């Protein structure tokens, strides 16, 4: 039984006046097992962000279903969707999406406060999480006072604090310098090793080479996938690069 299962997902965008329609996703099916670290790669416009939005229940597919642990996402009622997201999913975004009106601490608490948890419990969870993420020192600061890497670590803490079934990350290294990127990827790896399932959308080969499996998406379909197996990051990097080159040349596999 997979943790997450996407079946025959199709997404068609209509332009505003109902004229031309764009098929962002044609027919996408895949599964994610518990404890897996999956990266989805593709160029801009390949449909990967659309896919992530559908997985996150931020958007509805035109056809197809998404199942998270027996629960069919597409059938969750509109008014329960936010609650479902809060309880089951954790998000990490490219541009952090931290609220500038909150300190980092309060940003991390946000989902728990929304779930109506007690302050003592929130604090306990954060205290056990903060050292691992290396944000113990800066927790009282405001987003504008800290670096991009620190912001992203706070965002990861916010995603983790609800003990989500799966973390969905959208280009998490996109706005970071290379050192911060490395740190974040190391963090993801560590989190994954503790048993956390991660699904990451990226077009950074380096980021993808950390994952245990990489899916390639092109023109709205899953084009190819590779498993890391026992390979090192470096070997994985090479494999991904080769696949990307192949993709770019338009070859069939």
């Amino acid at each position, binding site marked *: 039984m997979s943790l997450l299962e996407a079946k025959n997902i199709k997404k068609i965008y209509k332009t505003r006046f109902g004229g031309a329609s764009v098929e962002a996703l044609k027919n996408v099916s895949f599964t994610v097992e518990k404890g897996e670290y999956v990266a989805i790669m593709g160029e801009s416009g390949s449909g990967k962000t659309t896919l992530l939005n559908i997985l996150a229940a*931020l958007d509805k597919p035109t056809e197809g279903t998404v199942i998270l642990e027996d629960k069919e996402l597409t059938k969750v009622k509109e*008014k329960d969707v*936010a*609650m479902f997201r809060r309880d089951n999913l954790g998000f990490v975004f490219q541009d952090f999406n931290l609220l500038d009106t909150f300190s980092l601490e309060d940003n991390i608490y*946000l989902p728990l*406060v929304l779930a109506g948890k007690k302050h003592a419990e929130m604090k306990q969870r954060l205290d056990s999480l903060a050292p691992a993420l290396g944000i113990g020192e800066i927790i009282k600061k405001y987003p504008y006072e800290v670096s991009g890497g620190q912001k992203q670590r706070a965002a990861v803490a916010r995603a983790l604090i609800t003990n989500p079934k799966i973390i969905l990350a959208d280009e998490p290294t996109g706005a970071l310098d290379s050192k911060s990127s490395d740190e974040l990827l190391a963090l993801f790896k560590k989190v994954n090793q503790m048993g956390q399932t991660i699904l990451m959308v990226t077009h950074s080969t380096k980021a993808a080479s950390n994952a245990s499996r990489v899916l390639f998406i092109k023109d709205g379909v899953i084009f190819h996938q590779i498993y890391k197996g026992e390979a090192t990051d470096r070997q994985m990097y090479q494999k991904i690069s080769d696949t990307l080159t192949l993709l770019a040349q338009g070859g069939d596999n």
Partner: protein
Amino acid sequence: MKAGFYPKMAVSGMRKNGRLYVPYIATCILMVSVFYIMHLLGFSNILEGFAGAGTARDMLRLGTVVMAVFGTIFLFYTQSTLIKGRLKEFGLYSVLGMNRRNLGKIIFFETLITWFTAVTGGIAIGIGLSKLAELGFRKMIGIGSSYKFIISWQSILTTVIVYSFIFFLIFLNAARKVRFSRAINLIHSDKTGEKPPKANWFIGITGLLIMLSGYVIALKIEQPLSALIWFFVAVILIIIGTYITLIAGSVLLCRILQKNKKYYYKTNHFVSVSSMAYRMKRNGAGLASICILLTMVLVIMSSTSSLYLNREEVLHNHYPRQINCSANNYGFSEDYEKTASKLEDEIIKKTNEFGTEAKDIISISYCDISGYFENGKLNVDINPLEMTTTIDYDKVAVAYFISLEDYNGLTGKEEVLSNGEVLVAVNGNLPFEDSISIGSETFKVAKKISSNEDNLKNIGMNGLVSSLIIVTDDFNGVASRFKDISDYRGEPMLVWEWKFAFDTGLDESQEQEFNNRLRSYIMDELYTGDFYLVRSECRSEQREDFVTTFGGLFFLGILLSVIFLVSCVLIIYYKQISEGFEDQSRFGIMQKVGMTKEDIRNSINSQMLTVFIIPIILACIHLATVLPIVHKLLMLFGHNNVPLLLISAGICVLVCGVFYAAIYKVTSNAYYKIVA
């Protein structure tokens, strides 16, 4: 570059920002038209040919000045909000190769267009509405309508000049704003990371203290004269206090709430408290302006309307009977009494000759002496020019001496006095024990009596200053003891007054005719030159003058209130729009993190409601604390009807509240449209 390029840029820029510019220009038009109407009524000869026309015109002239000053401040404020919202656009132009001169040209044409629309539109509407305003005014003061329609070139010219000047200042300010910012800053002007507001205990508490000290002054003042002096101090303190409190104090409050973990980490408090802290820092000034404008409207409307509604009562207080004769003189002599009774006899005879009789006669004579009350003593030998300490106007008091016989006659009581004891009625805060000293004389007080007896109100100045009414059974003896005291100019301080008022049962025109005859008879034949002043006034003749004053104030109050309210609406509208843009992205993030749409709506709703309710609640508190001092000021006009003032205030609050709620509803829609 092609001619007409800059005007085109200006037009398209304004069109694209129509959501901001349309209400702005509409407000400008309204301001110009009200200015024109006030100027027309105040400076042309439309209002002529009735008693009090001069007073009415003076008031409207004052209104014209207020309009010009307020217009300048307000349009300045609005314009800078507008420009702030467009700095990004100007930044883009600047990146595309426009220099500051070019940007200045665009701003120039924009201001030119606004100026032209506002002035032509405002004057056109002003001309259209001027007749309506004039008729409304005439109706209000109850004089016949005229059929002339006047367009005054002088008023048009003044309006054009004044508003051209205002718009010129506005242009300079906008050009300065754009000139002193860099292209890159212009582009990022809305994204500069804002520091989280720090709670500043010192400033927050100072603001509160300033506001409270204003309150204390407003509540503590007892007498109208001191009210006149302290009113503006109180107003200024309250205004400054409101601004500081709303800007710094509210942030402080939010921070205190955040410290309380149990309160803060609740779903409905968490988001609203933290974003309120931000919002207050940015919008505290706006909220304070809204609050002050609302307070001004409430105070102006409740005072002028209750003055206007109470005009008959005030008239009756000033002129208790149809015919009111009076005389006064310095010093005291028993001859005065004799002259007075001779005057009374002659007047009654004259009344009978006219074919009617004097009814409900009020006849009083009394002496008064003024001084400064301290420690149970009224000091009468103080030279105000040499006083070292500041004068507490609540302690300036007048002592009125009246004979026991007159007192019993006026009140219908049968008091008896002996051994030189006196009865004393006090008006004001003048504490004394069982004896009271006036100058060097000390009187044993037999009893304190009420100063609220109807007929006692005819004594003195209707409670403008603190007063003591001293009833004695030896009037002549007591008065003689004070007659030689003189002030620093050498004039006797004791003043003797005589009042003689009666009804005739005549209708208004006959009443006036009779009064005219009586007046000339008194002046030409009775008046012997012994008296400082003798006069006879009839109530109906004075009515027009009274009504014009009160009606004029009420009319002015309405016009100014309309302008203040419209300004208020505009500030609120801009606030909602700018907050809408701010909250747009926040709205998105919260949704992604798992806040339901309903949660968000609720949180935003409660937040907006709080932010919205603060100004009107505070305005009501301001009104409540200022009302006592306003009441004292109204007493200067002879208005002493507290229930009516309270009712007017209540109605004003109600009307304002409903109007405010309507604005809230409409502008919050504008907000949701942006956010959703």
